[in-house]
């Protein structure tokens, strides 16, 4: 017996006293849930659609169009989360002129719930990032950057649990090693912690303590490298457990549909990434059921 089922059924039944007459299947049929995850990565300050003379992406993307798409999906399913996997900054003069202010303001207007940090989000240094914090009405999530000795200390969280229609969705952020990608003068005393170790700790916490039903990792590690010694989303998926979906970035990989990887415990993990520049919006729909109902069945991937 699950508490949530109990409470909901009791409330619905009004004066119902006791539950002796209700079988388990009765309890669960009405308990199906639908959560929609929308996501972007590596938008790189592409506020307007790509210019008409762009050789590859002419007239694609654009924040104003993105909101139209998001609003339509939110009308279909209000239980929607909007997430970004980093590299919000750098790529058009909007960043050079306004330092990321417009990017953060627009993401707030679009109702982003959370984002993680990419290497380019340090392009104006930790100070430049800090200066834009007041414009972000969404969570900046980073579990493996230790900002303790920087001005960013206290302005990110390792994870955040969102509750939509009673479903607990744990979202955490993982960043790429900055050394070699970003000038030390920019990231200063930011410490990079091992993504695999941190992920193990966080997923454990999200599953056990926070009792999350879904766990999503916002990662800026990059999709896959031929070199197995470089930690990618593929490696992270394989070497950890407890993640349902990795929303990736950094490698600007265009995936038509999420890739299915297998984790340490033999369970499936989805990895998705939707290119860059706001050309696409990723959408993943989770249909959930009481775990009791699903004990002997496996998840169907309609992808």
């Amino acid at each position, binding site marked *: *017996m*699950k508490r*949530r089922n*109990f409470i909901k059924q009791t409330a619905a039944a009004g004066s119902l006293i*006791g*539950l002796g007459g209700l079988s388990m299947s009765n309890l669960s049929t009405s*308990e*199906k*849930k639908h959560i929609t995850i929308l996501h972007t990565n590596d938008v790189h300050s592409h*506020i*307007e659609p790509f210019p008409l003379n762009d050789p590859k992406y002419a*007239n*694609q*993307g*654009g*924040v*104003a*169009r993105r*909101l*139209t*798409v998001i*609003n339509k*999906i939110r009308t279909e399913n209000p239980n929607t989360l909007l997430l970004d996997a980093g590299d919000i900054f*750098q790529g058009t*003069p*909007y960043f*050079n*002129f*306004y330092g990321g202010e*417009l990017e953060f303001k627009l993401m707030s*207007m679009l109702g982003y719930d959370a984002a993680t940090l990419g290497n380019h989000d340090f392009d104006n240094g930790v100070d430049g990032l800090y200066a834009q914090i007041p414009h972000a009405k969404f969570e900046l999530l980073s579990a493996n950057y230790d900002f303790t000795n920087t001005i960013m200390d206290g302005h990110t969280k390792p994870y955040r649990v969102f509750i939509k229609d009673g479903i607990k969705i744990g979202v955490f952020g993982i960043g790429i090693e900055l050394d070699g990608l970003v*000038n030390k003068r920019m990231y200063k005393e930011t410490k990079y912690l091992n993504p695999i170790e941190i992920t193990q700790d966080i997923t454990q916490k999200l*599953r056990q303590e926070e*009792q*999350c*039903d*879904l766990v999503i990792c916002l990662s800026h590690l990059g999709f896959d490298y031929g070199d197995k010694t470089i930690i990618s989303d593929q490696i992270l998926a394989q070497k950890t457990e407890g993640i349902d979906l990795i929303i990736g970035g950094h490698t600007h990989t265009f*995936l038509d*549909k999420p890739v299915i990887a297998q984790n340490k415990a033999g369970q499936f993990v*989805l990895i998705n990434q*939707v290119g860059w520049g706001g*050309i*696409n919006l*990723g*959408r*993943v*729909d989770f*249909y*959930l*059921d*009481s*775990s009791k*109902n*699903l004990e002997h*069945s496996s*998840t*169907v*991937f*309609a*992808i």
Partner: protein
Amino acid sequence: MLLIIGCKQQQYKPERIQAELVPVDINIKSDTTITSFIAPYKLSVDKAMDSVLAYAPNSLTKKDSKFNTAIGNMMADAVFELANPIFKKRTGYPFNAVLLNYGGIRSPLNQGDITTRAAFQLMPFENEVVVVELSGYQMKEMFTYLSHGTAHPISNMQIILNKDGSLQKGTIQGHDIIDNETYFVATSDYLQKGGDNMTFLEKPISILPLDYKIRNLLIDYFKKKDTIAPVRDNRFIKEN
């Protein structure tokens, strides 16, 4: 009674997962609250970006020629001309040469007015000029690397390849490389950190960042010169 709640297992599991890639393209109407919010920002960015810095009598692209290109020569020579006074002021002596990368020429320079926007397109990244001190051995490694033939922009160096593509000679400011001599080469922080596999830049004898973005340097160069009409020359050639 039924409240056996202590158990800490999760309550819901995904039974079905569906995914879709949603293109954000011309078929989607723009949300007008967003476009009007962007408008004032766009206006001032456009105004600044459209300011004219110089004039180009001809269009230049990195595909115009092999081994060295007019546009690449212009970029490397610009670094030599504008970064050297800064280096000299800090150290008391000038650097010897410049090495950039072919991939770093991010767009053509079109015939007509050269605007700030053109400088941003040519160099969209935030790369900065750094000067590395290289040993004679590292210089030779550089020439071996360059002998592969990609038209990486250089200034104050010359490379001549034999007919068969092997390295005939590499010189710096007209001189052969001396093994136990050191040389000062200006490059970008991106390449210094091993970008484009230029590993000979990774462990220089000394390094001095100039805090000068290459894009800003180009903007300053365009402002300084009225007309931008560089040429291909014989700084990097292959014998016929």
